[in-house]
């Protein structure tokens, strides 16, 4: 693999809902093995950005390239076959299939993608559950029987079960207590390193950012207004970023909202 070939290359990505422009010409490169965290206030289009890259939403303009291949206008069928197996995704609410047991959830990608028989898939699922710190007896429960933190962990196990090359995390710590949030952050770092995967995380939890990120991009009003290494985030010299990371009410972002 060429080292200068970005894993994900987003160019001029634009997405509108009705008249509301959510993403306005986003350019973003994510290199292999990179851990990028996208920050931004609620409703700034962070989720939309991820969903456009995943192909769950069709952008209005711009291109998305995965490993140099333009996947923007790929047919659903080809995408299923050629692109989706590279992705793992941890959804905000977990999005576990509530009609299935935990192990069936975790092994879903294995049985559908790799045709692994059920008995073997269950063993792999239990191993993946152990990776996220869950005991084997959880495997036979249904998602509704688990606490929020455990659901997140099962969802994480499902996201990493197929050994994806790129993993997306949509607000992984939202709704968790600070300790469980730290556990999840730790697991994310560990899993991503173990797989050697490229990670894209969206969050507004600064503890997550500091723990997970190698690079940080800040999204505001459809643009990336700051991009840099995570170590620089406290010295960005950008008033927007400063306001966001310190969670101040006063600042340019608040003013921008008022102008709307």
């Amino acid at each position, binding site marked *: 693999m060429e080292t200068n070939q970005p894993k994900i290359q987003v160019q001029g990505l634009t997405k509108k809902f009705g008249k509301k422009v959510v993403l306005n010409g986003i350019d973003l490169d994510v290199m292999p093995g990179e851990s990028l965290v996208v920050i931004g206030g609620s409703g700034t289009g962070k989720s939309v950005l991820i969903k456009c890259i995943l192909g769950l939403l069709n952008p209005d303009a711009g291109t998305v390239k995965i490993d140099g291949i333009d996947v923007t206008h790929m047919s*659903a069928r080809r995408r*299923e076959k050629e692109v*989706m197996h590279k*992705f793992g*995704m941890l*959804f*905000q609410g977990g999005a576990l*299939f509530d009609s299935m047991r935990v192990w069936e959830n975790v092994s879903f990608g294995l049985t*559908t993608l790799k045709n692994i028989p059920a008995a073997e898939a269950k063993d792999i699922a239990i191993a993946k559950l152990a990776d996220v710190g869950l005991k084997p007896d959880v495997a036979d429960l249904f998602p509704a029987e688990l606490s929020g933190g455990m659901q997140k962990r099962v969802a994480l196990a499902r996201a990493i079960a*197929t050994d994806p090359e790129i993993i997306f995390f949509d607000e992984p710590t939202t709704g968790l207590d600070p300790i469980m949030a730290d556990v999840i952050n730790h697991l994310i770092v560990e899993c991503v390193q173990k797989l050697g995967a490229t990670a894209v995380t969206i969050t507004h939890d600064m503890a997550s950012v500091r723990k997970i990120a190698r690079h940080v991009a800040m999204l505001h009003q459809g643009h990336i207004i700051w991009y840099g290494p995570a170590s620089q985030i406290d010295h960005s010299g950008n008033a927007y970023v400063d306001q966001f990371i310190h969670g101040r009410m006063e600042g340019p972002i608040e003013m921008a909202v008022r102008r709307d």
Partner: protein
Amino acid sequence: MDATRSPAALLLDFCQGIGTVLLQFCQGTGQFAWFTLQSVSHIFRPPFYWRNLVRQLIEVGYYSLPVVGLTAIFTGMVLVLQSYTGFSRFSAESAIASVVVLSITRELGPVLGGLMVAGRIGAAFAAEIGTMKVTEQIDALRTLSTSPFKYLVAPRLVAGIIMLPCLVLVADIIGVFGGYLVAVYRLDFNPHTYLQNTWSFLQNMDVISGLVKAAVFGFIITLMGCYHGYNSGKGAEGVGVATTNAVVSASILILLTNYFLTGLFFAH
């Protein structure tokens, strides 16, 4: 404000209003047509999820039996009572058995059975798929390289198309049996003659047309359930609206297509 506007501007507003409605209608129709085509094409393209199909066959068929059976038995019973009070006025009691069996196999079995299943299955599908949509489970399916059409919609459609005729066949038998019970035990008909009258005027086509109708209704019910669930709005309210829409649209479409199918089968 409006009073000061020129007639031309008002006319423009009027046209714009019509245009918007027309565009929305076209968009809705197109969206529905696309959904239907996608769903049907995925029925025939591998991979097939047999486990999901079996689960839906049981859900649509087996678990609907009590509802459909109860509907059928009371329909058969009331048909005999009603036609007896009518037909006895001109001594045509011997026609009751034929009237009952023809009404049930041709119309009441498929239509009432279809409406009951629409309430049960249409609502269940819309709520289940709608909830999956709202909680991002459908997106999760897609990120796991699984087409929601193939995994969720196609097995449900096939289950509807297969199980509705089975249910209606059972309903036909139970309905006729209900009529028989009332005729023999309440109205003192001769059991042998009643059964003979039931059989003698019944043609294959009467039953077959009912079963074909049932298959079409099965398709309509499951398609409406899946479509409204799949396009459900956000939150609990969105799922609620989707469920209502699924049942109402399926019921109306059943009654509508029933008329045209009857015309197709028996008009000549």
